[in-house]
């Protein structure tokens, strides 16, 4: 099981205006699963291909367990890349597909057969060894692709959008499967995805990649609730940005004085607050605003309100949102613990 280090990777596709990888650095610990999250075109698939050895970076280093692998061709790296489409070999049956890598290692036939059977059982496709890829469903094909990689017990597993070609209900199943397999095998895994939910579920840590760089990496809800910069905040749907100055645990801005949680940075900055954190009612950090618009969005209702030239959006459940009528005033509470200051913005 391998520790992965990316150091200042730089890559520009020929003819492209902006670099695909811009001083990209990342550390993935041995046995960890990190979700590389970002919008399409941000360079995440390119990053995977560089790690796998399929493209060479213009600058920067890729290290497995501290040793640079830049000089190694893809077939000699301990990393296996599973493509978004699965890329099963159409002219081989499932068992031959799964055993392909072992065949390249020139393992004896009996060993290959045994390990293939084991891998197929692991992904719950035990008796489909003789089928051809075109006879399988999309979900089954993805599982074969996974088995084909896992059977090699690689040091590093690279998954490129493993779930995006699947239907919604299959996705939940596959997510659970990938999670379980990774925990069982302990293989260091890097999953690329554009889906926030997926990243949150799969990743021990989530790394947000924008414009070829990692803006923030953290566990659990850190990126949602404590974004490192405006881009990260906006990516996760943050929409309340209040400029002002923070000092001595209080924030001074157009809304007056707001009490900040402990440990907030001092100085000029931008206060941000997730829309779903706003609560109706009075108390600490309460503000009066004039409602502009309410919009029913299914599970929650989005209320846009304004005060002192500043717009705030809140997402509330139906009950809590009932009091908000366009043109009328409401009183909202901005819970101290939900406030987050982005310094120097």
């Amino acid at each position, binding site marked *: 099981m391998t520790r992965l280090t990316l150091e200042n990777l730089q890559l520009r596709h020929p003819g492209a205006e902006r670099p695909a990888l811009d001083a990209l650095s990342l550390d993935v610990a041995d046995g960890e699963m990190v979700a590389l999250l970002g919008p399409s075109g941000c360079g995440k698939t390119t990053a995977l*291909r560089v790690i*796998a*050895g*399929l493209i060479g970076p213009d600058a920067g280093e890729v290290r497995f367990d501290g040793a640079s692998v830049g000089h190694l*061709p*893809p*077939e000699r790296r301990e*990393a*296996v*890349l599973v*493509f978004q*489409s699965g*890329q099963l*070999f*159409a*002219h081989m049956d499932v068992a031959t597909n799964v055993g*392909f*890598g072992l065949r*390249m*290692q020139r393992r004896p036939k009996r060993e290959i057969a045994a390990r293939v059977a084991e891998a197929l059982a692991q992904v719950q496709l035990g008796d489909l060894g003789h089928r051809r890829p075109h006879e399988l469903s999309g979900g089954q094909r993805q599982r074969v692709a996974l088995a*084909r*990689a896992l059977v*090699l017990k690689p040091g590093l597993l690279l998954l490129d959008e493993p779930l995006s070609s699947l239907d919604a209900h299959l996705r939940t199943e596959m997510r659970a499967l990938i999670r379980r397999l990774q925990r069982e095998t302990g293989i260091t895994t890097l999953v690329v995805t554009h889906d926030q939910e997926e990243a949150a579920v799969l990743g021990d840590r989530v790394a947000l990649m924008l414009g070829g760089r990692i803006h923030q990496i953290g566990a659990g809800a850190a990126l949602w609730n404590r974004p490192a910069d405006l881009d990260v905040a906006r990516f996760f749907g943050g929409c309340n940005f209040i400029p002002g100055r923070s000092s001595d645990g209080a924030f001074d801005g157009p809304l007056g004085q707001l009490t900040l949680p402990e440990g907030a940075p001092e100085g000029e900055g931008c206060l941000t607050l997730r829309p779903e954190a706003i609560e109706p009612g009075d108390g600490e950090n309460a503000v009066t605003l004039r409602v502009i618009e309410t919009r029913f969005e299914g599970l929650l209702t989005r209320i846009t309100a304004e005060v002192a030239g500043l717009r705030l959006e809140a997402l509330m459940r139906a009950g809590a949102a009932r009091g908000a009528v366009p043109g009328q005033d409401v009183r909202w509470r901005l819970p101290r613990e939900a406030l987050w200051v982005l310094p120097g913005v």
Partner: protein
Amino acid sequence: MIGRGHPWLSLAPALGVTAVLFGGGLVLGLMGSFGMGRGGFTFDAWSAVLSEGRVWRSLGLSLWIAFASTALACVIGLGAALLLRRRFPGQGLARLLFQINLTIPHAVGALGILWLLSQSGFLARLSAGTGLIDGPAGFPALTQDRYAIGIIAHYVWKEVPFIGLILLANMQSLGDDPEAAARSLGASPFAAMRLVLLPLLRPALIRAGAIVFAFSFGAWEVPVLLGQSAPTALPVLAWQRFTDPDLAARPEAMALAMLIALVSALLIRAAFAGRS
């Protein structure tokens, strides 16, 4: 309007013309081989043709030409496609020449090959100029020779670009991912090409090969210029019988033409395998 339905009106003109000219031509040829244009139905022409040593030698020669040309064109064409799929100085020019080659009529190409490879041709003169040979006789007989080298050289020259461009188009639509996946699983570049790319190219290669085989077997203008007079390729023999002043040779000419059609019919399955 679109999707299911019977668009026979749109198909009728083309089907009609094809049936009359193409189908009719074949049927009439068959009938002619049985002597039916001159009253009566007889196997005379067929028994004469099938028992004639010259016919079998011509058939053998034509089969040799077709096999050799197709095999060489496929192998070299595949190699050329693999060569041309990556960038290198000259890639653009080579691809352009491939496309130009496709537009060159076979008659022109055959004449060019003749003037290139004959014993007094361009290569022979280069050899004389560098002192490798003394006179025309010193240059090996590559045209009008018993191994049909000149004929095969022409077909290879003309069909390598044809096969190459088809394979290049296929490789472009396949993309690099199949081989990349194999390499990520531990396959060397050569193994990835052999085990993953080639099987994916096989259907197109077979279809193209069938077309090349049929053409190199049944074309007339190339062996008539580059080939020996005896044994001569089957199409040339058929034409000789057809233009024989003795009209009794006509049915035999038709029989030979039907033989040629038969061989191509056997290739139809390969040529159209897996379409739609």
